[in-house]
C-alpha cells in the first residue's frame, strides 16, 4: 500500500493499516456472499447433484454378484474358461455354501434376475436351484447341482458368473451401445438386434427435424415481431407467450384430440372433401404426431432467442444496402440474415437440447415409431427394472446434453438465458 511518496502505511481511524482493514472488509464480504449462497448450494447438491452422481455410480456398479456369492467368485478366479472344462468340485461346494446363505435371505432371486440381463435362463436357474438347495447332501456337490438343473453343466453360465463377479462393470454401457463382452473381446450385436444405437439415431433424427421445423416456423415470426411497431409486437407476443406458459400436458392433449382419426382435423378434411371418410389420415401414434406436437411445444423456445437478437439489428444496415442498389432479397440475405445467425444458433441449440430429452409427448403421441431414448430409459426404470441399463443410457444422454450445453454456453452464456 506504500505510495510512491511516503513509506509509512496509511492508517484508518482505529490505527489499523488501511490495507489490512480493506482486506478484512473484503474477506467479510466474500464470506457473507458465500453464506447467502450456501443454503441453496447445499440444497441443490443434496437433492439434485447427488442423485445424478448416484446414477453415474449405478451405471457401473455391480456389487450384487460378488455380494451374494462371494466364495464362488473367489474360487472361480483361478478357473480358466478357455480350457472348455467346467469348474471343479471346490467351486460347486462354494456355490452351495453361498446359496444356502442367499436362500435364507431370499437374495438369490435378485441375483438371478441380475444375471438374466446378461444370459437368458439365469433367473429360472437360480430360482429352481434355490428350491433344491436345502435338500442337498454334503459332498459331491457338482453332481447334485447338475441334477438340480443341467444348466450348471453349461460353461456359458459359469463364464457369465465369472465375468460379472467384478464389483464394477462396463456391461451396462456395452449393452447401451448394443455390444457385449462374449469373453473373447467386445462385439457388437448383429444389425437387426441393435435397438439402442437405432433409438439414439432416431432421437437425433427426430430432434433435428423438430429443430429445423421450429426454425422454419420461428424465423418469420421473430422477424415480424422485431420489425413492427412495439405496441403491435407486444400484443402479438402474447400469442407466443401463451403457448409457452400453457401446461405441456394441456398442449399434448390438445394435439391428441386434434390429430385423432375421429379428431377435429380429420373431420374438417372430410367435410371439405379433401379426403374421403375411409381415407382418414393417420397422424398420431407415429413420427408425424411426435414432430407436429413437439414443434408446437418448442416453437416459443426458438422464437424468443431469435427475437431478442433480431431486436438489436439496426435497420440502417439494410437501408444502406438498399440505397446502394441491393434488391430486397439481397439486402436480407447478405445483410440481415448474417446478423441474425447468433439468434439462430442460440434458438436451435436450445430447442435441440430440450427435444432430445423429451419424454411425455413422445410417450403420448409417438406410438412405437415416434418414441425417444428417454422412453426406453423410463421403460427400464419402471417396467423391466434393469436400473443399471437405465442409468447407463441416462449417462450417455446426459453426456450428449452436456456437450451441447457447453457449446450453448460458449455462444450465448448461461447468464444470458432470458425468460418470458
Amino acid at each position, binding site marked *: 500500500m506504500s505510495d510512491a511518496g511516503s513509506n509509512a502505511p496509511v492508517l484508518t481511524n482505529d490505527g489499523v493499516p488501511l490495507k489490512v482493514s480493506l482486506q478484512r472488509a473484503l474477506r467479510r464480504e466474500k464470506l457473507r456472499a458465500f453464506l447467502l449462497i450456501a443454503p441453496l448450494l447445499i440444497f441443490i447438491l443434496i437433492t439434485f*447433484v447427488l442423485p445424478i452422481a448416484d446414477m453415474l455410480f449405478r451405471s457401473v456398479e455391480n456389487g450384487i454378484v460378488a455380494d451374494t456369492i462371494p466364495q464362488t467368485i473367489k474360487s472361480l478366479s483361478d478357473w480358466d474358461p478357455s480350457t472348455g472344462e467346467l469348474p471343479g468340485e471346490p467351486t460347486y461346494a462354494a456355490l452351495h455354501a453361498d446359496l444356502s446363505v442367499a436362500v435364507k435371505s431370499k437374495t438369490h432371486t435378485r441375483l438371478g434376475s441380475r444375471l438374466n440381463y446378461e444370459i437368458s435362463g439365469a433367473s429360472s436357474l437360480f430360482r429352481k436351484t434355490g428350491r433344491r438347495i436345502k435338500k442337498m447332501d454334503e459332498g459331491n456337490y457338482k453332481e447334485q447341482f447338475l441334477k438340480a438343473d443341467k444348466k450348471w453343466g453349461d460353461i456359458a453360465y459359469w463364464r457369465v458368473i465369472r465375468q460379472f463377479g467384478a464389483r464394477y462393470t462396463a456391461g451396462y454401457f456395452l449393452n447401451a451401445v448394443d455390444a457385449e463382452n462374449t469373453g473373447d473381446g467386445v462385439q457388437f450385436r448383429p444389425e437387426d438386434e441393435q435397438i439402442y444405437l437405432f433409438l439414439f439415431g432416431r432421437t437425433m433424427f427426430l430432434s433435428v427435424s423438430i429443430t429445423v421445423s421450429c426454425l422454419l416456423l420461428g424465423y418469420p415470426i421473430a422477424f415480424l415481431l422485431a420489425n413492427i411497431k412495439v405496441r403491435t409486437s407486444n400484443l402479438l407476443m402474447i400469442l407466443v407467450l401463451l403457448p409457452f406458459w400453457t401446461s405441456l*400436458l394441456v398442449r399434448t392433449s390438445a394435439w391428441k384430440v386434434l390429430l385423432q382419426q375421429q379428431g377435429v382435423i380429420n373431420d374438417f378434411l372430410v367435410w371439405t372433401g379433401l379426403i374421403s371418410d375411409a381415407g382418414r389420415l393417420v397422424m398420431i401414434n407415429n413420427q408425424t404426431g411426435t414432430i407436429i406436437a413437439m414443434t408446437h411445444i418448442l416453437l416459443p423456445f426458438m422464437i424468443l432467442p431469435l427475437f431478442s437478437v433480431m431486436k438489436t439489428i439496426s435497420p440502417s444496415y439494410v437501408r444502406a444496402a438498399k440505397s446502394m442498389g441491393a434488391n430486397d432479397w439481397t439486402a436480407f440475405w447478405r445483410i440481415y440474415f448474417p446478423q441474425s445467425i447468433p439468434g439462430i444458433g442460440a434458438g436451435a441449440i436450445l430447442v435441440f437440447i430440450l427435444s432430445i*430429452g423429451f419424454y411425455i409427448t413422445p410417450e403420448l403421441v409417438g406410438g412405437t415409431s415416434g418414441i425417444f431414448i428417454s422412453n426406453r430409459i423410463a421403460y427400464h*426404470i419402471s417396467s423391466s427394472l434393469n436400473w443399471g441399463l437405465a442409468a447407463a443410457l441416462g449417462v450417455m*444422454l446426459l453426456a450428449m446434453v452436456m456437450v451441447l450445453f457447453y457449446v450453448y454456453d460458449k455462444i450465448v452464456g448461461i447468464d444470458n438465458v432470458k425468460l418470458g
Partner: protein
Amino acid sequence: MAALPPYASPAQRTWHYTFRIICGLIFFFLIFPIMVIVPLSFNSLPFFTFTPEMLRLDPAGYSLINYKDFFTNPDWNNALRNSVTIAPVATLLATSIGTLAAIGLSQSHVPFRSAIMAILISPMIVPLIISAAGMYFFYSRIGLQGTYLGVVLAHAALGTPFVIITVTATLVGFDRSLTRAAASMGANPVTTFFKVQLPLIVPGVISGALFAFITSFDEVVVVLFLGSAGQKTLPWQMFTGLREQISPTILAVATLMVAISIALLTTLEFLRRRSERLRGLTPA
C-alpha cells in the same frame, strides 16, 4: 417491414401480404390447439370433436358435464388437492433460498462464481427424464421415494434455477449505493435487506416464484417416478388419462389450466411493465 412504402412495386406488394399471411398461419398454428379445447370442453357428448349440434350453436350441444365430473370425481379431486398442497410449498422453498443465493451471487467478490452458477442452473439443463431417474434411484436409497417430502424437495430443486435467473436479472439494475446509504445510517444487514433491497427487487422475486410454481404445478415426469399413489397430481392424472382411457373430463381440466396460464401470464406482464416503468424513472 413496417408500413409498405407508396413506391412499392407490385411484386413487393404481393410479398408483403404473402409474408403477413404466412405469419398469420404460424400464429394460428401456435394458438389454435390451445383455443380449440375450450369449446370442445363444453361438449355434451363424450366426443373429442365438434358435434353437428355444436356447430349449429344449438344450446343442447353444450353442457357443463365435463366440469361437473371434474369437481365430483374423487380421482380428480384427489389430484387437485395434491397439486395445490405440493406446488405452493415447493415454490416457497425454492423462492426463499433461491432469492438469498441470487443476492449472494450478485455481490462483487464471489469466488468460483461461474462454477457455482453452473451447479445451481443445472436442474434446468439436465433432461427431466435423467433428473427423474437419478432422483428415483437416490431417493429410494434414503427412503424419500413415494413421500410427500420427496416430491416437494424435487420440485423445489427444479424450480430454483428460474428464481436465480429472474432475481439475478432484477439485481443487475439494482443501485448498490442504496444499501450503503442504509448501512451508513445505522441499519443492520437484515433491516437493510427487508426495508431497502427486498421492496425494490420484489417484481423479480414474484416472477421467479411464478416460474417455480408453474414448474411444480405442471411437472409430471419427476412426480411420476418419485411419487406414489398418494402424491398423484393433476398432470399425473391427466397423463394416465391420456395414456389409458381418454375421458373428455381431460378437456375441462385442460381448459381450467389454460385459464391459470392466462392469469399467470397477465401477472407477469404487469410486473414487467411496472419494473420497466420504475427503471425508466430511477437513474440506473
